[in-house]
């Protein structure tokens, strides 16, 4: 879960890292009031649909963070992330702040100093010093920057972050160090022990279908094609998407119903995919391990029997646990059954082509 900038800055501020004065505004009037109380010049930063957004000159725009502009001499980069290959957190410092750090990483990898941290010990003072001095941070502020790096690591560990980044970390003319930006991603799987952070979370605004998927508890990603895809297990669903592309179609979504899905879940999945107007055909690919073919078939029947006319053609391929029982249950007046993954995908791609003509 990604925190909004103003939320991440709130977390930083609480931990003692200096951030610019700021206020969140949901209307143009509020923004002006905020700017006047902070004092010009200010920076205005979009924060997504925090409180429903605001209407400006007839357009619906996002809420904004009104923030005191910082007069800086230097821009640094500091961050903490997980090095998944090493299974270890890594603290990072660079004097190339203020620009896209991914570009720096690609073009001048040596300009970013990486210090791996033992997760059982946490960051040591020497590790923070080493990273800061080796990055070439000015001596005048090196101690402060090292201290900020340690605070960020501690936040990373305490809040179950997967990524924390300050870019730029600004150094002012009188050697103050201020976090002018803040990125903080929190591990979704750890939110159960951070109710305060979970409350900050909101569904990534913008896509209603992705919000609906969250409600149903599906892993769902919307794409721009016209073949709707439902399956079980991340790898197999990704493979189904890839095959749709391989056979000349375009996938409309990734939808994983997960393991052991019951009929109701299957019905919800079909409702979701039909709710996407761009879908012209659906391929349902199940390889049952703990998911049972008979449950899936019952769910498909229930989903489709509620329609007088099936909205879009549905191709079903069932294999694995109770697949034969599922085939017997499946109402073949409502769906097209295919025996293999490849043939099911090809058939769905054909239907989508016919449908879009």
């Amino acid at each position: 879960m990604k925190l909004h900038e103003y939320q991440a800055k709130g977390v930083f501020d609480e931990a003692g890292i200096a951030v610019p004065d700021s206020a969140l505004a949901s209307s143009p009037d509020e923004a002006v009031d905020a700017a006047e109380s902070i004092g010009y010049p200010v920076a205005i930063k979009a924060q997504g649909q925090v409180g429903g957004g605001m209407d400006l000159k007839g357009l619906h725009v996002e809420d904004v963070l009104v923030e005191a502009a910082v007069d800086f001499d230097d821009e640094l980069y500091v961050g903490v992330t997980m090095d998944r290959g090493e299974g270890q957190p890594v603290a990072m410092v660079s004097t190339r702040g203020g620009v896209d750090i991914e570009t720096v990483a690609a073009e001048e990898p040596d300009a970013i100093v990486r210090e791996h941290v033992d997760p059982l010990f946490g960051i040591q003072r020497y590790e923070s010093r080493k990273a800061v001095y080796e990055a070439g941070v000015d001596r005048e502020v090196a101690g402060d920057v090292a201290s900020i790096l340690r605070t960020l690591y501690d936040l990373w560990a305490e809040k179950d972050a997967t990524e924390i980044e300050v870019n730029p970390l600004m150094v002012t003319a009188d050697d103050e160090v201020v976090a002018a930006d803040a990125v903080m991603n929190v591990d979704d799987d750890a939110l159960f022990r951070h109710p305060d952070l979970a409350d900050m979370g909101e569904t990534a605004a913008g896509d209603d279908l992705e919000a609906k998927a969250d409600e149903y508890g599906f892993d769902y990603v919307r794409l721009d094609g016209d073949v709707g895809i439902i399956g079980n297990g991340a790898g197999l669903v990704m493979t189904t998407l890839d095959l749709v592309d391989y056979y000349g179609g375009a996938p409309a979504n990734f939808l994983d119903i997960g393991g052991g899905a019951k009929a109701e879940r299957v019905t919800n999945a079909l409702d979701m995919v039909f709710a996407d107007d761009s879908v012209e055909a659906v391929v349902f690919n199940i390889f049952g391990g703990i998911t049972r073919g008979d449950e899936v078939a019952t769910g498909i029947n229930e989903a489709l029997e509620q329609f007088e006319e099936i909205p879009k053609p549905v191709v079903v391929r069932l294999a694995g646990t109770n697949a034969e029982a599922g085939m017997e249950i499946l109402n073949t007046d409502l769906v097209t059954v295919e025996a293999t993954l490849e043939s099911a995908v090809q058939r769905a791609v054909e239907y989508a082509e016919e449908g879009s003509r």
Partner: protein
Amino acid sequence: MSVLVDADSRVVVQGITGGEGSFHTRQMVEYGTNVVAGAVPGKGGRAVEGIPVYDTVAGAARAEDADTSVVFVPPAFAADALLEALDAPLDLVVAITEGIPQQDMAQVYRKATGTDTHLVGPNCPGVITPGEAKLGILPGNIFHAGDVGLVSRSGTLTYQVVDNLTSRGIGQTTAVGIGGDPIIGTDFVDALELFEADPDTRAVVMCGEIGGEDEEAAARYIGEHVDTPVAGFIAGRTAPPGKRMGHAGAIVSGSGTGTAESKIDALGDAGVPVGDTPEAVVDHVETFR
């Protein structure tokens, strides 16, 4: 021969009294797995399916001479269960649990490094040596004994590829589900090393997916250390950057690392043919025979 698990493995199930734990224990026993104990804190002295339950893994290991653990403990308590299994100690720990916090796994991974225990998973379907034993939730009936080793980050994709292999008469020595999380114990390189050392494994299929750089590391390893022919499959060619595709680890980063293309190229450079479809992977395996 096989890798990691066989008919002699003596298995303790952590979380045996839970819904998942008891269901899959029954399935494992039916398959022929030698499940000798369960371990659940506070439930020692009970029995599940006639299998004695102990309060601690160490107690179970001592009393029943267990050398292997399968972990069905819920995510909030799973890291503790894994640390307990590492401490017992055991030869093999298979973590089925999905949704373990990343930082918990970083600590477990750190503890596992430097031990002789093989940690498989988490977020994996398990390990099976067809006809001998299965650990985890894999459907035993689709597997058949043979000479192809299989290692995969995904459960159902494994079933798909195994089904394609089996339907063309190609059996498996052992199938290892290494899991879909960002931080896992046994990775592709570890599994390839095991298969390379197994005289009965004549070919290996590796099923990778987007996210991370494990497949690239495996490709380098194959180029330098593996004589057994390897065929590959990579899922997620159509995945957009920045989106988590079901698995916590299946994400193409904004900077463009972890793409299917990068993995397919790396494997190609190492002489590993990569199938466009699961069926095409089996075509490659047939050319090895």
